[in-house]
C-alpha cells in the first residue's frame, strides 16, 4: 500500500520552474532517501507532501487523502505527518517538554497529563529525558534535533519527512541524530529523507531518489545507486560528495 504518492507534480515560482513533473511513491514502512545538488528542488518537493508548499500541477496523495484538493483539511493532515527541519525549528520560548506537548493538547485534544507522559517517554527514547525542563537555546544542535524528532513522534505520525536533518550540525553531532533515525527506520516507520548521508542511506534506505533541476532523474536501490548510478548527473554528484 502506498503511503505517499507524488503524481506528476510541477511547481513554478513566477517564470521559474522549481519542480518539473515529479513522480514517485513511498510505501508503508518504506524508507526513501532523496538527494541531489543544491537548488535541485528537494526541499520544495518534500514540503509539497504535507502541503507546506503549494504546487500548480499534479497531486500528492498521503494515506489516500489528496493534498492538492481544495476541500482537504490540511492542518488535520499535517498533524498526522511528522516533519523535521534542517534548522530544528523548535519553539524557543517553550521548554523542551512544552515543545512536545503543545500540539498534542491544542491539535489532538489530548489531556495535559497524557500528553506529558507521551512526551517524557519520547524524550527518554531519544536520550534526553533529563533535559525536559530546559529551553531549546540551552541545548546543543544535536540535542535540539533529537527533541525535534521526538516532537514530531509525539503526534503519532503515519509517516515522517526529514529535510536535511543533519546538515546544520557539527560533525561530531551527526551520528547521535542518525542513530535515532536508523532506529526509527528499523521499527518500520515510513520515512522520506532528504539527506546526503550515504552511510545512513546504505543502512536503511529501500530506495534512493536523485533529483536535478527540479526533476526526478534517477530512482534505484541504495546499493545500486551509490555503487553504479546510471545517469551522468548522478555520477558527477556522487563524485563531488566524496571530496
Amino acid at each position, binding site marked *: 500500500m502506498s503511503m505517499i504518492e507524488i503524481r506528476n507534480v510541477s511547481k513554478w515560482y513566477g517564470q521559474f520552474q522549481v519542480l518539473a513533473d515529479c513522480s514517485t511513491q513511498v510505501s508503508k514502512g518504506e524508507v526513501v532517501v532523496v538527494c541531489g545538488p543544491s537548488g535541485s528542488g528537494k526541499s520544495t518537493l518534500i*514540503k509539497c507532501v*504535507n502541503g*507546506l508548499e503549494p504546487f500548480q500541477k499534479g497531486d500528492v496523495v498521503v494515506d489516500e487523502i489528496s493534498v492538492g484538493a481544495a476541500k482537504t483539511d490540511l*492542518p*488535520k493532515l*499535517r*498533524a*498526522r*505527518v511528522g*516533519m523535521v*527541519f*534542517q*534548522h530544528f*525549528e*523548535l*519553539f*524557543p*520560548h517553550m521548554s523542551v517538554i512544552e515543545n512536545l506537548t*503543545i*500540539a498534542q493538547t*491544542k*491539535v*489532538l485534544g489530548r489531556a495535559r497529563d497524557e500528553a506529558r507522559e507521551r512526551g517524557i517517554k519520547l524524550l527518554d527514547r531519544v536520550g534526553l529525558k533529563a533535559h525536559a525542563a*530546559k*529551553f*531549546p*537555546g*540551552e*541545548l546543543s544542535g544535536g540535542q535540539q534535533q533529537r527533541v525535534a524528532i521526538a*516532537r514530531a513522534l509525539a*503526534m503519532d505520525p503515519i509517516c515522517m519527512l526529514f529535510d536535511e536533518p543533519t546538515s546544520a550540525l557539527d560533525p561530531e553531532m551527526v551520528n547521535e541524530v542518525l542513530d535515532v533515525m536508523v532506529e526509527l527506520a528499523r521499527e518500520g516507520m515510513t520515512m522520506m529523507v532528504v539527506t546526503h548521508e550515504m552511510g545512513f542511506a546504505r543502512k536503511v534506505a529501500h530506495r534512493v531518489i536523485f533529483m536535478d533541476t527540479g526533476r526526478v532523474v534517477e530512482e534505484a536501490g541504495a546499493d545500486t545507486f551509490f555503487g553504479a548510478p546510471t545517469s551522468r548527473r548522478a555520477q558527477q554528484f556522487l563524485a563531488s560528495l566524496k571530496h
Partner: protein
Amino acid sequence: MNYHWNWGVYLEQVSSGDERYLDWIVSALGWTVAVSMTAWVIALLLGGVVGTLRTAPNRWLVIAGNAWVEFFRNVPLLVQLFIWFFVVPEFLPAELSRWVKQDMPAKEFFTATICLGLFTSARVAEQVRSGIQSLPRGQKMAGLAMGFTLAQTYRYVILPMAFRIVIPPLTSEFMNIIKNSAVAFAIGLMELTFISRQMIEESGQVFESLLAATILYTVCAFAANRVMAFIEARARVPGYIAGAK
C-alpha cells in the same frame, strides 16, 4: 542673570483662585498620566492587531494595514489632534455632533487620548510587523507542520516570540507617548505642559514652572522605562540570543 528664584512658589495660592500651584501641578500630572496610559493601551491593542494583519497572507488586509500605518505616521501629531477636535465632530450624525460639541464630558481628554492612541498604534504596528518578519521563516512552517492552523501558529508560535523581540522598541514608544501627550495642551487639556504655561503667566516664575514639568515628565518616562525593563526580564527566554539561530 537677574532672576528672582522663589522656591516657595509651589505652595503659594494661585492668583485666580484658592488653590495652590502645587494642587494644579498634581492634577496636571494626573491628566498627563491618564492620557498617556489610556492611549498606550489603545496603541498596544490596535497596533498589535494591525501589525499582525500586515503579515497575513491576504493582499487586502496587508493593504489596509499599510494604509493605516502610513496615514497615522505621516501626518503631524498636532495636525491630527486638530482634525479630531475641530473637523471630525462636524462629520458625525447631527445628534451626536451636537452632543460632542456641547455636552460631552471631558471632551479634551477623550479627543487627546484617541488621537494619541491611534497615532502611536501606527508606530507600534510597524514594530510588530518587523518583529514578526524578523523571525526565521521556518518557525511558521514548523507551526503549520505540527497541524496548527494559521491562527494557532500565530497564537502559539509567532506572536509570543515577536512580542519578546519588540519589547525594546516598544519601550521607546511608551516613553514617547508620555512626551507626546504634551500636545494636548493645544486643545486646552490641563495637563503638565498647559499648567506650567499657566503657572508662568500667573506667578511669573518661569524657571520653577518649567522645572516642575521637566522633572515630572522625566520621572514618568523613567518609570515607563523601568516597567518595560521589568517585563522584558520576566519574558526573557533562557538560552535564547536575539538574532541568533
